[in-house]
């Protein structure tokens, strides 16, 4: 509109004209939100994830409404087609597929978020230490990260997942408990997943520690840990958030692969990965059993990837976004 031509009354105050040209004052968060919306697919992805999470949380309510539980076996109705009682049909043991998908979602989403957060925390801590203290520590940690990245991870994870936890000194009752496979997979993924974040944070720390505000804090006598946590971390957090969001999708994929191969979440606890193991055996008689859990994984992972991409536009603009 302002390009339509000079306004006839060209004598308003300079301040007002500047105000009109600059537009109202907006916070950085407002611009970030605008860039997030401009991604077009990021918001739908976020809403999808919220809906999936809510549905998984409400699995108990769904059990109440349907009047039976996800673990109830009905051997007379194995691999049954969808019906009024079982909206998506039943699996190879006659358990309700919809309920198991919801419970599997709790496991897959929970493991994905927990493992991604653990990996990001380890990576952030190591990256800060490597970048801030430099020297031998930095060289060692970065060589270690290079080596972990260079290894064929999936077979290595399979070996680690097949270990006998009692031989590691864990007491029998802990190792055999139901939640053991949950903790194990989170720990495994955190163990190999920290490298990306560590490199990102190290790079950011290297450039931030030469800046005036960090030098000033050092001159005022702030300790190393305080500088890292209070001054460097808040300025390096945006790329970490983006990378962590993007990694959740990968973590869910990894969890589903390991569970599918029988090395992740152990049945009878359902996860989208191990539900496919059973479905693979009935592929000729009941192919739809193999479609639903995979579709859930696919939708969740693509939503996390699109959300991460949108967050990258929003938080980490490199002059690379459309406006």
């Amino acid at each position, binding site marked *: 509109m302002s390009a339509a031509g000079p306004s006839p009354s060209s004598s308003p105050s300079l301040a007002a004209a500047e105000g009109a040209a600059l537009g109202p004052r907006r916070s950085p968060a407002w611009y970030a939100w605008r860039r997030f919306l401009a991604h077009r*697919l990021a918001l739908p992805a976020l809403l999808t994830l919220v809906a999936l999470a809510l549905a998984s949380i409400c699995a108990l309510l769904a059990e109440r409404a349907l009047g039976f539980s996800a673990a109830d076996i009905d051997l007379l109705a194995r691999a049954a087609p969808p019906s009024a009682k079982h909206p998506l049909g039943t699996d190879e043991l006659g358990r309700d597929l919809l309920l198991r998908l919801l419970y599997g979602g709790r496991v897959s989403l929970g493991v994905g978020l927990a493992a991604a957060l653990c990996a990001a925390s380890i990576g952030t801590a190591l990256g800060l230490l490597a970048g801030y203290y430099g020297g031998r520590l930095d060289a060692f940690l970065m*060589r270690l990260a290079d*080596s972990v*990245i*260079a*290894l*064929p*991870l*999936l*077979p*290595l994870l*399979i*070996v*680690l997942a*097949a*270990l*006998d936890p009692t*031989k*590691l000194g864990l007491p029998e009752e802990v190792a055999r408990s139901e939640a053991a496979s949950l903790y194990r997979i989170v720990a495994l993924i955190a163990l190999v997943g920290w490298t990306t974040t560590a490199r990102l944070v190290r790079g950011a720390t290297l450039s931030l520690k030469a800046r005036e505000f960090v030098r000033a804090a050092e001159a005022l006598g702030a300790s190393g840990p305080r500088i890292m946590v209070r001054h460097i971390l808040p300025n390096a957090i945006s790329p970490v958030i983006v990378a962590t969001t993007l990694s959740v*999708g990968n973590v869910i*994929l990894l969890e*589903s*692969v390991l569970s*599918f*191969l*029988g090395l992740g979440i152990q049945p009878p606890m359902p996860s989208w*990965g191990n539900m*496919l193991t059973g*479905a*693979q055996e009935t*592929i*000729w008689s009941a*192919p739809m059993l*193999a*479609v639903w*859990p*995979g579709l859930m*994984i*696919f939708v969740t*992972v*693509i939503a996390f*990837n*699109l959300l991460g*991409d949108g967050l990258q536009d929003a938080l980490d603009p490199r002059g*690379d976004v*459309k406006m």
Partner: protein
Amino acid sequence: MIAFLVRRLGESLVVLFAMSFAVYGLIGLMPGDPIDLMISADPNLTPADAERLKAIHGLDRPLVERYWSWLTAALTGDFGYSRGFAKPVMEVLLPRLGNTLVLMGAAFIFAFCIALPAGVAAARRPFGVTDSAISLFAFAGISLPPFWLAILLIILFAVTLGWLPAGGMGGGGALDTLQHLVLPVMTLTFASIGGQIRYVRSAMREALRQDFVRTARAKGLSETRVVYGHALRNAMIPVVTIMALDFGTLFGGALITETMFGWLGMGKTIYDAIMGNDYNLALVGLLLATVTVLLANLLADLAYGWLDPRIRLS
């Protein structure tokens, strides 16, 4: 250049050495050692016999000592026997390494031949309709669980249409083998294509922003020559490198694909060996896979220096 090569080879050897020790130690933590298996197979075996057997096989010695005798034997080319196949492990592994390389090579070539033009087309008009469609496809590619894709392909082509075998290696000549290769190669191609498109697209966008591209346009070169002759050649440098670095991921994809389709490659062999308590086979297989991946990384570094004369390897 020579110094660089020597240093990188040295680093790779250190990683390999650390890896072999770690895996050797981890294998000992797996459920069921060889003597346990003998006990479960023969109820007449007394605990005293078991102790004696452990002493004969050296299982009562400390880990470092056992590792050292394994390593010295391995360095002379003796990698031991596979329990499940009753053959030297290398005799089992080498043909299967060949099968894996066939699968990975075919998938890589197909993926690359599709990803290159797709990534270039997406980068030419960023955020246009073409780019949006291609980028969404790439996102779908990286988000699709490969084992689920394999199941879907089996449902479509083997169960419903009956056109292709659902798995196995085939044994009736070249055509039969090719038929058995179609679905695994499709799976692995699709599993790697999304990442490749994204690499090509972002490298091309970077290259198209450079001054030499503006110069080429100002000279009046055709857009095709600017894009393919000038920008793409420079974009290929990071793309080739990152793809070689991705070799480990591709190997993971191959493991899943081989397991799904019963293709007798390295990945399936390692997986079966771990699940079937054939630990020596798993150990050597894992190390062989590591050597392959480390070699690919080394090649990536060398290719980087060769493709980009501005970079001096030192």
